[in-house]
């Protein structure tokens, strides 16, 4: 494990955080990286929109 997480690791953690509890170390690595990385921050926002969209998916006919 590199000292600084890569975007590749952080993307995976952003997704896995939606499915499991991250360890304290993982949470810290994620948080520190998100503070400095726009790409991963945007990715995180995109994942949140996808999750919300699935919960709000309209079922009625338009």
């Amino acid at each position, binding site marked *: 494990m590199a000292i600084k997480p*890569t*975007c*590749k*690791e952080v*993307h*995976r953690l952003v*997704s*896995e955080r*939606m*499915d*499991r509890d991250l360890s304290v170390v993982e949470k810290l690595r994620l948080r520190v990286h998100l503070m400095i990385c*726009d*790409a*991963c921050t*945007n*990715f995180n*926002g*995109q*994942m*949140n*929109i*996808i*999750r*919300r*969209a*699935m*919960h*709000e*998916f*309209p*079922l*009625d*006919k*338009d």
Partner: protein
Amino acid sequence: MTTPTLHEQLENMRPALLRFALLQLRNAERAEDAVQDALLAILEKPDQFAGASSLRTYVIGILKFKIIDCLRVAGRTVQIETEPDQSEDDVIDHLFAAGGHTIDPPRAWGNPDAVLEQRDFFRVMEVCLEKLPAQNARVFMMREWLDLETEEICKELQLSSSNLWVILYRARLRLRECLDINWFAHSSGNKNGN
């Protein structure tokens, strides 16, 4: 205008429920049965839905059990027939350069409320869901639409947790890419939900 009856409201939801059940069951007859059973169960005991939560949540909650039943009856021998496609690893790897940086950094999708107000967004999203590989779609729908716990999905589909996490990650990456190309690339201008 009269308020639609429960029956009318459910009929109105039926097409969408069917399409979503089909994404998980991959069999028209089984999807039809699961939805029919769920709707009948609700109509037989309309009192059970006494304004508790929304009708939507209630219907999906009932359908969840019907879909799980259906997966059990279909038996674990009926695996999804598609091969795990060879490009599976590429879905993740092609996003990143050797040093682990994103090759094409994700852009901001804007205000979630504004995005989710637009009916057309969901049409595009549904097309994207339909384009997912079968197993991706099934697992993703179970997790994000039926809201099943990961342990339950692992049990029903006999997957390890780490396997499940990576399937969900790939499904999300595919959806993200599809939405980014087909919706957000065109929505930077003024799209007013028409």
